[in-house]
């Protein structure tokens, strides 16, 4: 028996993560009549969803009457360079309008058209204006609406500031999880009939990122350790416009809405360089194209003083900018002393979103582990090789609901799992591993190792990669692995709110995500979407329906290619169809 005691908490469905997907999944599972317990690393309402600015993509055709689910589907597939799970993309395009309207009925307040409908703004690589929005704080509205509904729903409870360390199985099914409270370090054994993972992304494995401390890829790592498959892990999105200066705010996001509202990109010579990269769509090209264009300009010596490009919206009136982009105006004035109504912004690519993640069933969010479900950024498939702006919030709503229903039916069908006997040895060794950094006062500082992992990923899996660099990265991650296994807390070994200890736990997740990314990137010998390789610069047709699947085996991490079933004809036609261009004069 372990020397450490724990409290046992029982529920039907355990939801890990309280962002949009976790909350929407919670509501769906509670509606099915089950007890749902949400566990989150931060306070409720602080999840990364609040950072989403631009809007939620849904073909409601409130602004462009030509918009239909087929066009949204085609845009999503083309943006994802055709390796998306086409069934997910179909469900997403069909169901997102309903999910947005439902949000409004729960109290969300969107910007309106002159007719009083939900307004929709144009965004990169969306054929028509499609993003329902609330100024530039759409994510906050979404999370607050779902959060308020969840806390007023019977049978829903929330455990805030709790970290989950390991998923536990009984008889091959999910049956619980080991966790600790950040505030006092006390242990909790959750017993449940099924788990929904909605833990978000893994941007923190890079140094320059728009992601918060929470995005250490915990969900992908927990699922991987539990036997689930990961997919498209090489596909990590660089958002084209992060702040570059001052140094303290490097990587902070500048919403794509700036370009959606007319912002133009220029290099240091004043040239509107997107002309040379995507003449048709210019600044509103897909994110992978714009990010690489800025990168190329900087590499060619045409960058700004701090190594970026200029993003200029000064041709719009100050009133327009302050009403459409209020938080951007505030952010630059306060943090960079730049008045964006009069001066251009300096921007450079920043790590933003993981398209890859846990492989799930399109309709239910099920993984291959019985009782384990996933939705949102931690899952994969919808976005393929590149995510379009606005498709993330709709992803959370559509697949949060579906996975919530999926996890609920699994929990109902296997209510016995929450009382099935756990393997005591497995539990004891998990507790020992969790507590180990506290028993190594002389161990290396986790903060140092954290920075080193970021350094490896930044250097070896940058915006344009190559085989030898990636291979060397894997070596370094392996070397870091043994140091992480022996690390301490970096100082005091107290249990009470000890971020050094918490960080030591995060490292484990980061290593899994880093290795999966590097290894998948080595296998994809071509350039596609977010994955660009200087040694394989072309997109290979024969790799089009191929995804790389990562799985844990007895010999370590296994990466293999898998071919998707071909799209049905009606979907293939939707992708190939040529849609009329949007002309504001004709529709508004």
């Amino acid at each position, binding site marked *: 028996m372990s020397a450490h005691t724990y409290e046992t908490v029982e529920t039907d469905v355990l939801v890990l993560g309280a962002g949009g997907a976790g909350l929407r999944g919670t509501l769906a599972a509670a509606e099915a009549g089950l007890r749902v317990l949400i566990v989150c690393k931060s306070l409720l309402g602080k999840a990364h969803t609040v950072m989403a600015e631009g809007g939620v993509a849904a073909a409601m055709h409130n602004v462009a009457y030509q918009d239909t689910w087929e066009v949204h589907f085609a845009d999503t597939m083309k943006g994802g360079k055709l390796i998306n799970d086409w069934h997910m993309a179909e469900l997403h395009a069909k169901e997102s309008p309903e999910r947005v*309207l439902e949000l409004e009925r729960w*109290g969300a307040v969107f910007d309106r058209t002159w007719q009083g409908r939900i307004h929709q703004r144009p965004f990169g690589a969306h054929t028509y204006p499609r993003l329902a929005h609330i100024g530039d*704080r759409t994510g906050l509205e979404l999370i607050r609406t779902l959060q308020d509904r969840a806390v007023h729903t019977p049978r829903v409870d929330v455990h805030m500031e709790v970290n989950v360390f390991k998923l536990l199985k009984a008889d091959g099914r999910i049956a619980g999880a080991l966790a600790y409270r950040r505030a006092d370090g006390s242990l909790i054994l959750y017993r449940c009939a099924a788990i929904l993972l909605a833990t978000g992304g893994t941007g923190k494995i890079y140094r320059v990122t728009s992601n*918060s401390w929470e995005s250490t890829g915990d969900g992908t790592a927990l699922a991987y350790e539990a036997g689930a498959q990961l997919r498209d892990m090489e596909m990590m999105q660089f958002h084209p416009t992060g702040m570059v200066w001052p140094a303290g705010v490097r990587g902070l996001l500048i919403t794509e809405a700036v370009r959606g509202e007319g912002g133009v990109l220029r290099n240091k010579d004043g040239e509107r360089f997107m002309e040379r990269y995507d003449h048709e769509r210019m600044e509103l090209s897909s994110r992978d194209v714009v990010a690489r264009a800025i990168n190329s300009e900087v590499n060619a010596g045409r960058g700004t003083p701090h190594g970026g490009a200029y993003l200029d919206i000064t041709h719009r009136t100050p009133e327009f900018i302050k009403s459409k982009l209020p938080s951007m105006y505030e952010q630059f004035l306060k943090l960079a002393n730049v008045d964006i109504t009069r001066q251009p912004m300096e921007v450079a690519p920043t790590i933003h979103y993981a398209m890859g993640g846990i492989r799930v069933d399109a309709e239910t969010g099920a993984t291959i582990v019985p009782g384990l479900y996933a939705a949102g950024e931690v899952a994969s498939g919808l976005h393929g090789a590149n995510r379009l702006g606005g498709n993330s919030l709709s992803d959370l709503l559509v697949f949060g609901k579906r996975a919530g229903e999926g996890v609920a039916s699994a929990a109902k069908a296997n209510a016995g799992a929450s009382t099935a006997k756990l393997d005591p040895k497995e539990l004891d060794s998990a507790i020992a591993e969790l507590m180990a950094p506290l028993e190594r006062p002389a161990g290396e500082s986790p903060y140092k190792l954290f920075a080193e992992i970021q350094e490896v990923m930044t250097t070896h899996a940058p915006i344009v990669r190559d085989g030898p660099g990636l291979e060397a990265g894997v070596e370094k991650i392996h070397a870091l692995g043994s140091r992480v296994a022996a690390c301490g807390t970096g100082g005091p070994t107290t249990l009470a709110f000890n971020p050094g200890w918490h960080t030591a736990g995060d490292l484990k997740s980061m290593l899994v995500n880093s290795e999966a990314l590097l290894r998948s990137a080595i296998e994809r010998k071509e350039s596609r979407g977010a994955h660009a390789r200087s040694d394989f610069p072309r997109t290979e047709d024969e790799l089009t329906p191929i995804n790389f699947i990562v799985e844990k085996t007895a010999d370590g991490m296994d990466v293999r290619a898998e071919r998707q079933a071909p799209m049905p004809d009606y979907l293939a036609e939707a992708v190939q169809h040529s849609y009329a261009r949007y002309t504001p004069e004709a529709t508004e």
Partner: protein
Amino acid sequence: MIEQTAGRAQGAPEEISNLELNIWRGNSAGGDIVSYRVPVREGMVVLDAVLWVQANMASDLAVRWNCKAAKCGSCSAEVNGFPRLMCKTPISEYGGSVTVRPMKAFPVVKDLVTDVSWNYEVNKQIPPFTPSERDATSSEPWRMQQKDVERVMEFRKCIECFLCQDVCHVLRVHDDKAAFYGPRFMVRIASLEMHPKDVLDRTPLLKGKAGVGYCNVTKCCTEVCPEHIKITDNAIIPLKERMDDAYFDPIRAIVRRLGGSPKRRPVGE
């Protein structure tokens, strides 16, 4: 006061000068200010300095933060005595010395982390958004005009940093959390009451448990709001007026007695 120093930071090439960062360290049993020397980088905010100390000098320094972009409201603290978001407070606003303490209105957990769970309990007591039966069951998308939704949009900008709660004298000085929900939840109630599609009437709650009468309009909350919500003018005063109209207007009292039932459903009595 305890002094701690460390060697030069690794990887800080833009080092210009040093900052004396004084951080309150302790827990519910008590604590003290500890002083750290932090190398300053251009554009550094107070949160950067605190996180630098955490990574290099005090690995167990407890602090909450998330987005680092003033969008989540996690890193609230009192910087040189003034409630602020640390991620939005440039070091350059101060001289060579900054003192950071946890919010005073809430019990300390450890260092800069406070127990804000009371706020989440209050939120549960406020009846949520409730549309009319007709709106709720209609199959048509709702129509609302921009000018009607803009009024509540101001309130919905709230990022729940709880700085307004921290500075409110009812909560901070008198610790009278049983009598008054505090500015944050006046904003919350206003966002529901003024929502074009909400049909509940929360004035009984305002008069009773929420205690809107306790606010004596000093506007301290408005002053510290990082989202620049005009909490007192646009949320609290209109709510006070609603309560006055409902309970203390003699003509309405007569109308009510004659059975002029309000259209909206009163809740919270």
